[in-house]
Structures are given as C-alpha cells and as structure tokens.
C-alpha cells in the first residue's frame, strides 16, 4: 500500500502506532546502513546505521515502531534519536502508518 502524504507534525513521531515501509520503496543494504529509493517520489534516502536498517526492516512485522526499536536492541536512551530518524523517513513518505485490521 502506498503512503498518503504525512500529516505528522515534525518532531512528533508516533512511536506507538504500527508502521511499515512504503510498498514503492526498495532497500539496498550497504556497510554504512542502507540506501532507500522511493519509486513514486523518485527520492533517495540513506539509513546511516545498520541498526536503523534493522528497525526499518522490522516495522511491518512489529505492532509498533517502539516494538521494532526494542526488537532491534535500541537502548531507551537512544529511542528519541531513532524516533527523529523515523520521523524524517515518514515526512518523505519512505515509511507510513499501517492500517490495522
């Protein structure tokens, strides 16, 4: 499912919502993290750490972004930095909220 334009206000990422990678996004792992490309917006993004890549990859399978962070071993003290990175990805439609059944 493609993302609708993000309505999240900047800096207020909803960690407790279920998220997913946009269906039009492809991921290429690299030593530094990963390259993300959105075929709809034709935008490129970089994930600047392998841990962030692990979070992004598991979003779709976890009940919330917070759970995805925990599963990837993100420490509580680092959580806000991850939320900020995820917010940036949401703003560029790389990830979007998942409809729950």
């Amino acid at each position, binding site marked *: 499912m493609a993302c609708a334009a993000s309505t999240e206000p900047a800096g207020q990422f909803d960690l407790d919502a279920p998220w997913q990678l946009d269906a039009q996004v*492809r991921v*290429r792992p690299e030593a*530094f993290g990963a390259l993300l*490309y959105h*075929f709809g917006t034709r935008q*490129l993004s970089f994930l*600047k750490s392998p841990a962030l890549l692990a979070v992004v990859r598991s979003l779709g399978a976890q009940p919330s972004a917070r759970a995805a962070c925990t599963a990837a071993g993100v*420490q509580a003290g*680092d959580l806000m930095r991850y939320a900020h990175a995820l917010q940036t990805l949401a703003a560029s439609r790389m990830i979007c909220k998942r409809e729950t059944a």
Partner: protein
Amino acid sequence: MSKAPLPLAEQFQYGLQAPICLTWELTYACNLSCVHCLSSSGRRDPRELTTAECMAVIDELQRMQVFYVNIGGGEPTVRPDFWALVDYATGHDVGVKFSTNGVKITPEIARRLAGRDYVDVQISLDGATPEVNDAVRGRGSYEVALRAMGNLADAGFAGFKISVVMTRHNVGQLEKFKAIADRYGAQLRITRLRPSGRGADVWDELHLHPGQQRELYDWLVAHGTDVLTGDSFFHLSGYGAALPGLGMCGAGRVVCLIDPVGDVYACPFAIHPSFLAGSVRDPDGFAGVWQHSELFSDLRRPQTGGACESCSAFGSCRGGCMAAKFFTGLPLDGPDPECVRGHGEQALAAAAAAPAPRPSPDHSHRTAPHRTGERRPVPLTLLARPPVTGRPPVSACDANPLAGFVPGR
C-alpha cells in the same frame, strides 16, 4: 547509533556495493552539436550496445539494486529502441531519468511519460533566451526545448527537470531560468561547465569568472534544495556554508558512466583512457568492473589532498572536480581550476607550458554545427588548434566559429 557514525561522504569515499546512480549514455548520435558537449557526441558509433545487450545491462543493474539511471547521450531518444528500453528498465525496478534536448517529446510522448511513476525527464537548456541558448546549443534548439516543456506541462507531467550548464553568458539569467521552470511547473537544475569532451575547447571562453562564481554560490545558497545541482558545485563550498548534497567527488565511488559502446568510466565528465575501468562486455559484466577494476579500487583508497591539504577550505571543497583538473592539465591532488581561493589560476599558469590531456573518443559531426549569436562576440579562438596539414588554412574572416575544427584524436 550508540557511537556516532562517520559522515556519509567519508564512508562513501571507500565505495559502495553498487553505484548510487549511474549515468548511461545510450548513443553518441545527436541531432545537435552543442559546443560544450561533454561526450563529444554527434555521430553514432557502430559498436554501440545492441538492444539485447542494453537489456542485459538493465538485468544486471536490477540484481545490483541500482535504483535509477540517468540516461543521456548523445540524444538518447533518437535510438529506435529508446522507449522500449525505458519500459524494460522501469519494468525491472530501474527508474529512469533521461536527458534530452526535447526533439522527440511530442504531445503524444509527453502524455505517455506523464503516466509513469518511474520516469523523469530532463530538458537541456543553456540560455533563458534564444540568443544565449542557441549560441551554445545550435540554432532553433531553444524553440525545440520550450516546445517540449510545453508538451510535458500540457500532459500534466509535473516536476520535470530543466537542466542548465552554467556559463559566463547565462549566469546572469538565473532568475529568468527560474521563471521558465515555474511557468512549466518544472524544477530547475543548474550544473557546472566542465572542460570535458568538446567542453575542453570552449572552457576558457565559457567558464565562470571568479565574481560570477560568487554570484552563483549566493544564489544557490538562497534557493537551497529548490534548485538541483547534481552536486556539481561542491568546489564553491569553499566560500562558506556547504551547498546541499554529498559534497564530494563521487567518481568510481558512488557514481560512474557507461558509455554507448559499453565502456565504464569513473564519471560522465572523464571520458578518457585514464579513467576507463572496463566494459560491460567484459566476462564479469558491469558488476565485475564496479567491484574489481583496478582503477575503481585505486579511487576508493584514501586520497591525499596534496597542495590543498593545508588550505582552510579543503574540508568543504575537497579539492574540487577530478575531471576539471585533469582536462585543464592540473595535478589531481592539487586545486580545482576554479578554486574559490584563486589557487586554480596560479596552478593553470604554472601548467600552461605542458599540453592538457585531450578528451577522447570524439564522435563530433564532421560538418560544422549551426550556430547563432552573431550579435555576441564570436569566439573565434575557442576551437583554435594547430593547423593540420592537408586542410586549407582558415581565413581570419571566416564567420563560422568552428572553422578549422578537426575532431581530436
């Protein structure tokens, strides 16, 4: 993220599994003869990749997860299989942005393109007025480009790109270019003139004066990410705040060029045997060249800044553009010829005694291109080469600025 990762540009110096994007020139054939053509295009090369070979390259790019290619030429749309190749690429998760002078962008084609998510179009325009544009790109080329833009806009293709190579004659037209882009709902892309291809012959006449570089830098800073630059002006970051982009030379590290005959070069501005890494026709294909070529391995080793290392601007300009240095005869570990601190001018003066390397190969039309610009000073010296035996001497009154032009060897 418990420990701070290296800045991306620093990590990219050591290369990636595959290019971030690559430039693929599909043909050397072109209906125009722009004086600054970086690939010296004009005539098709009989050895150009066949449709089947192009499709095999696309398959490989898909396997390597190269998400998009910048297709150029020559004029790529004159290849009879061009639209089939675009469809094949986008059907295989390889997005396409192609550069064109607009000659084939009919209303029908524009409607077809507007319906595609994976395709972006970039129309080349080197003057915001016919006089300035046609002097560089040839008579009538302004009208062709604007007609193509109109067709794209009418078809509802939002956000196509208008790509401008910055010269001393069009830098004063930045606002006019922006107005044209706004009028068509397009995005402006401003790139640097390189002394590559035929650009080597006109660089002295067309490259920006130092004051104009500053003017351009300030304008780019003011427009931020609204105006694209292809990261081509990172050498100007020596003025102060860094321009948006990676701010590094990506040659062989994050970008490369596949030329029409399948040769792989470190970057689109470095078509010369010194920067030839291999061929997609080699047994291990493009992936083999990208991952194992000696040249690319060398480029991914830590580089020395040479004479630039003691300069306080080195951290932001990184010594500038490799191709610009090479084709002006400067050492690769020294300043860029357009160094904002003026070190390039000194280096150029010092290097003037030795001839700079000639771009090659050359596929220029053997006939002189159409030029206009009679009301501007005609740059008679710009293609001056030593007289060639067997050719009639060029009259000083010959109004054709390409008189005496002989394709380089």
